[in-house]
C-alpha cells in the first residue's frame, strides 16, 4: 500500500543505506569543449592536395572477387571492403525490412563476431565460452545443424582485458576456423562440427588470450594474440590450414631474428631502419613484457602476396616506464605470407602514450593519388587519423583526422612521425585532462566498409576523450600491467559515437550520423547503397549510403557491437544478419561485473558509459532480416 509519507522517507534513506551510494555517484562527465581539439585546418592537409578524377577507387579483382552472395570471412573479402553487391534492398524499400528469424546464443556477453554464411549454412562463434553454432538456412527458421563447445579454460576470463569477446571465424575448404579465449585455434568440419585439428597457441599463465578472427588465405591460417594490458609480448603466427601445424611465428618486439626481420626488410622511414630496434628502442629487457599484440585485423593481399597487420599498444600504459620508440608496437607490418619475413613497417604512434593500438582494419584499394593510381591500404587508426599508405613500400601518402584529436597535431610525412602535443604528454601522479582521442581511440576494432559505388568508407567510431594519470606499476605475470588511472568523457558535442562517410580521395567527410553512444559495431554497405550498423542501446539501423539519412531502424533485445553481414539466401533473396549482445570494453558496465560508481573501472571506460545500464541489458541473439517475400 502506498503511503505518501513513506516516499520522501525512502528517498532520504535509500541513497545512503539500502544502496549505499554516495551523493557523488557517477554521472557522465561534461563533453570536452570544442576548442580543446584541433581543427582539420590547424592540422593541415598533408603532402599533396587531393587529386580527384584521375581514376576510379576500387579493390582489385584478386582481393575482392565477384560477389557470390556468401559471406565466408568477417571482412567479406581479402580487400576488407565489407561490401555486398546484393541490391534487392534499396533506399526505397528498406522501410519494409522485417525480422525473419532469430536465435539465442545462450551467452550474455559482448558479441563481436560476424555471422558467416557458406553453402546455405550460417556459422556463429559466441563470446566465451566460444560456442559455435551451425544453422541450416535452407530450412524454415534456420534450425540448428550442430553445436560445438570448445570448453576453454574458465580462468582465461581473468586475462581478457575488455570483456570475453570473439571477433569471428572463417569458412575455408570445408572447415570453420576460429580462436578461443584461452588461446586455441580450432578447425571444425563444417559437415559434422567435429574438430579437424586444434592447436594451442596462447598461454593464459602469461596473460595471453585470443579474441581476434583468424584470417585464412593461401593455405595458411594467420593468428595473433591479445594481452597488451597484461605485459604480453605480441606475435603473429601462421598455421598450415590442413594440419594446424605451426609454419612461422613473428614476434612484434625483440631482436630481428624473433621479429622475422631480414634482408627483405625495407621500411620507408629512417626511424624504422637499423638492427634490433625491437630491443634497442626499449629499456633493458622491457620488450619482453612490452605488448605489441595483434588482436585486430590481418589483411591478406592476393595481388602483391603480402599480409598486413597492425601491432597493439606498448605495455605498460605508463609511458614513463618505457622510454624509447618501443618498436614494433602501435604500427603496421607487411610480411611475406609464406615465411613471415617483414617487408616494411610503419609506426603510427612511436612511444605510444595513450593506448593507441594499431590493430584496426586495413582496406586494400587501388586509388588515385597525386595524379597516379596507387596501390594503397587505408587504415583508420585509434590515434584519430585516416592513413592512406602505399602498400608496396609503406609510405604514408596522407594522414587526416577523422575524429577529435589533440594528443598530436598532424603527421610529419617527411619523417612519418606524428607531431606530439606537449600539453597532452602523460605524467606520473598528475592528471592530464581532456586528451583526445580517448584510450579506445577515435575508433577501436569495429571495422569500416567501403563501397566501390560511392567511393566512400563508412567508419563506425567514437567521439571520446579522457583524463589520464600515470601510476607506477609492477609486472606480475598473468596480471594487468597498465599503470594508468583513466577517466573517459564525451568528445566535443557530447555525442559519444558517430558513423562517418569518408571520401579517401578528397580526404574529407561527406556526411556524419551522430550517435549518443560509441558506435562499437562494424558497418556493411550494399549494392543497393545502404549502410547497416548497430548502436550500443540496441538499434539496428539502415542509412542511405549517399546522404546518411536513417531510412529504417529496429530495436534488438540488447545493445549491438557485432558485425553486420549481407548474404543471398537459398531462396535468392537478400538477407541482413547481425548479433545483438552488448559488451566489449565499452559495454563492460552492462555485460561485466562492473560497478558504475567507479569511473576508473574497466580501464576508465565506465566513467563515460555509466548510463548505459539505463538503456540496455546484457543479451546475445542472432537476428536475420529480409523484405517480406
Amino acid at each position, binding site marked *: 500500500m502506498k503511503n505518501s509519507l513513506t516516499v520522501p522517507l525512502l528517498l532520504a534513506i535509500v541513497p545512503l543505506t539500502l544502496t549505499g551510494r554516495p551523493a557523488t555517484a557517477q554521472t557522465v562527465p561534461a563533453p570536452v569543449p570544442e576548442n580543446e581539439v584541433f581543427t582539420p585546418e590547424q592540422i593541415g592537409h598533408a603532402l599533396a592536395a587531393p587529386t580527384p578524377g584521375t581514376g576510379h577507387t576500387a579493390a582489385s579483382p584478386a582481393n575482392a572477387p565477384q560477389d557470390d552472395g556468401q559471406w565466408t570471412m568477417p571482412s567479406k573479402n581479402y580487400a576488407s571492403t565489407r561490401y555486398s553487391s546484393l541490391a534487392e534492398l534499396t533506399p526505397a524499400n528498406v522501410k519494409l525490412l522485417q525480422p525473419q528469424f532469430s536465435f539465442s546464443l545462450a551467452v550474455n556477453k559482448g558479441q563481436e563476431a560476424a555471422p558467416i554464411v557458406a553453402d546455405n549454412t550460417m556459422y556463429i562463434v559466441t563470446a566465451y565460452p566460444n560456442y559455435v553454432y551451425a544453422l541450416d538456412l535452407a530450412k524454415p527458421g534456420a534450425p540448428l545443424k550442430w553445436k560445438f563447445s570448445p570448453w576453454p579454460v574458465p580462468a582465461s576470463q581473468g586475462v581478457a582485458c575488455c570483456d570475453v569477446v570473439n571477433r569471428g571465424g572463417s569458412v575455408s575448404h570445408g572447415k570453420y576456423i576460429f580462436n578461443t579465449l584461452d588461446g586455441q585455434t580450432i578447425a571444425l568440419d563444417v559437415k559434422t562440427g567435429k574438430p579437424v585439428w586444434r592447436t594451442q597457441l596462447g598461454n593464459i599463465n602469461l596473460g595471453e588470450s585470443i579474441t581476434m578472427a583468424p584470417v585464412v588465405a593461401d593455405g595458411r591460417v594467420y593468428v595473433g594474440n591479445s594481452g597488451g594490458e597484461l605485459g604480453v609480448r605480441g606475435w603473429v603466427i601462421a598455421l598450415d590450414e590442413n594440419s594446424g601445424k605451426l609454419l612461422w611465428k613473428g614476434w612484434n618486439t625483440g631482436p630481428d631474428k624473433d621479429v622475422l626481420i631480414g634482408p627483405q626488410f625495407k621500411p620507408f622511414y629512417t626511424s624504422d631502419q637499423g638492427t634490433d630496434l625491437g630491443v634497442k628502442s626499449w629499456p633493458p629487457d622491457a620488450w619482453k613484457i612490452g605488448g605489441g599484440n595483434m588482436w585486430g585485423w590481418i589483411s591478406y593481399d592476393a595481388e602483391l602476396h603480402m599480409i598486413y597487420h597492425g601491432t597493439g599498444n606498448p605495455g605498460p600504459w605508463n609511458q614513463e616506464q618505457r622510454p624509447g620508440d618501443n618498436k614494433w608496437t602501435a604500427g603496421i607490418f607487411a610480411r611475406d605470407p609464406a615465411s613471415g619475413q617483414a617487408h616494411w613497417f610503419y609506426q603510427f604512434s612511436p612511444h605510444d602514450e595513450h593506448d593507441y593500438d594499431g590493430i584496426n582494419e586495413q582496406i586494400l584499394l587501388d586509388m588515385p593519388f597525386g595524379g597516379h593510381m596507387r596501390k594503397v591500404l587505408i587504415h583508420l587508426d585509434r590515434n584519430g587519423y585516416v592513413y592512406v599508405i602505399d602498400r608496396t613500400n609503406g609510405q604514408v601518402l596522407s594522414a587526416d583526422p577523422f575524429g577529435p584529436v589533440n594528443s598530436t597535431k598532424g603527421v610529419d610525412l617527411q619523417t612519418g612521425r606524428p607531431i606530439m602535443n606537449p600539453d597532452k604528454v602523460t605524467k606520473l601522479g598528475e592528471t592530464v585532462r581532456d586528451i583526445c582521442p580517448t584510450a579506445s581511440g577515435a575508433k577501436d576494432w569495429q571495422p569500416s566498409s567501403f563501397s566501390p559505388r560511392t567511393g566512400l568508407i563508412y567508419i563506425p567510431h567514437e567521439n571520446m576523450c579522457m583524463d589520464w594519470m600515470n601510476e607506477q606499476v*609492477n609486472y606480475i605475470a598473468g596480471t594487468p600491467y597498465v599503470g594508468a588511472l583513466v577517466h573517459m568523457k564525451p568528445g566535443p558535442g557530447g555525442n559519444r559515437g558517430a558513423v562517418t562517410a569518408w571520401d579517401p580521395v578528397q580526404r574529407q567527410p561527406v556526411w556524419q550520423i551522430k550517435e549518443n553512444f560509441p558506435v562499437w559495431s562494424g558497418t556493411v554497405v550494399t549494392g543497393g547503397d545502404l549502410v547497416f550498423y548497430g548502436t550500443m542501446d540496441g538499434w539496428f539501423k539502415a542509412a542511405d549510403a549517399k546522404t546518411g539519412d536513417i531510412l529504417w531502424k529496429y530495436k534488438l533485445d540488447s545493445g549491438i557491437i557485432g558485425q553486420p553481414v549481407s548474404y543471398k539466401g537459398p531462396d535468392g533473396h537478400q538477407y541482413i544478419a547481425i548479433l545483438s549482445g552488448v559488451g566489449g570494453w565499452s559495454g563492460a558496465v552492462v555485460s561485466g561485473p562492473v560497478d558504475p560508481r567507479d569511473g576508473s573501472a574497466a580501464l576508465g571506460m565506465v566513467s563515460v558509459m555509466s548510463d548505459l545500464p*539505463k538503456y540496455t541489458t546484457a543479451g546475445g541473439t542472432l537476428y536475420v532480416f529480409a523484405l517480406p517475400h
Partner: protein
Amino acid sequence: MYSRFPTSRKRWIRTMRGQSPAHKRGCPSRVNPCDACVAPCPAQRGFGKKRGFCQSLRHLRRRGTSVCLGDRALPGTIGKAVPRVCVGTLVALLTACHHGSSPGAAQAAVPTTNIQGVIDSALEPGVNHTLITTDPRAAAYYDNPQAVTDGKRLFQQYNCSGCHSSGGGGMGPSLMDGQWIYGGRLEQIHQTLVEGRPNGMPSWGGKVPDQQLWEIAAYVRSMSLPQTLAAQNGPTPSQTPAPVPKSAGQDTGWGAPPKTTNDYGTTLQGPAE
C-alpha cells in the same frame, strides 16, 4: 633512466616481505605454519639470471601443483636485479593447515546461526560444526585503520587494481557492491586471495606475505562499507577506506541481491529520447 621513480628496490623488497617479524628474511620460525614464507632463493628461469625473492619453487613442487608464473620485474629493476615472485599453488598445504594446525580456530565456537553466505560443510556427520573458514588471525584486522590503509597500498602494488579498478571492477568483478560470491568475512576474502577462484582470480597464497593478504582482505571488505562509500569524493571510490567493524565479521557482508539487477535510477539520468 628510471631514477624518476621513487621506489627503490630495497623499499620494494620491504613491501614484498611485510613489516611483521614473522616475515623477516628466511622465515626461520613461524607463528603459524600456514603463513606464507617469502624467502630469498635463486631464480629458476626467465630473464635476468639473478637472485630474487620467491617461495622456493622446488619446495613448492614437492607439494604438487606449482607453477612459475614468471618474473616480477619492477621499474628500476628490469635488466638489473630482478625480483621474482615464483608461484606455487599451496592448496594441499593450506587445506591441511586449516584443518590441522588451527585447532584454536575450529574450537572458537563461532555461532552457526546468523551466519549467511557461502555454505560451508563439516566433514564429520552429526557434529554441530563451526565454519571451516573461521580463523583467529582475522580478529586483528577488524577495527584496524592501519590494515585498510596498508591494504589500499598493496591492492595497487600487487595489481589487484588492474582487474578490480578502484573497487568497481573490470576484468574482475566489482568489490564495492557488497555482494560476495565466496563470502565477505575477512577469513573468506583471505581464503579467496590465498586459493584463487576458477574464473580468473589468481591464487596468491605463498606468493604474497600472509599478513599482507589479510590487509588486502580488510581493504577489499572496506570498499562496500557505507562509511567508505560515503567518503567517495569524485569519480574514484575507495580512496579513504573505513576500518572494517567487527560487526561486519558477523554479518559476512553477504545479503539478498538488490531489488533489481541494474537499479541505477537513483544516480543516473534517464534516456534522453
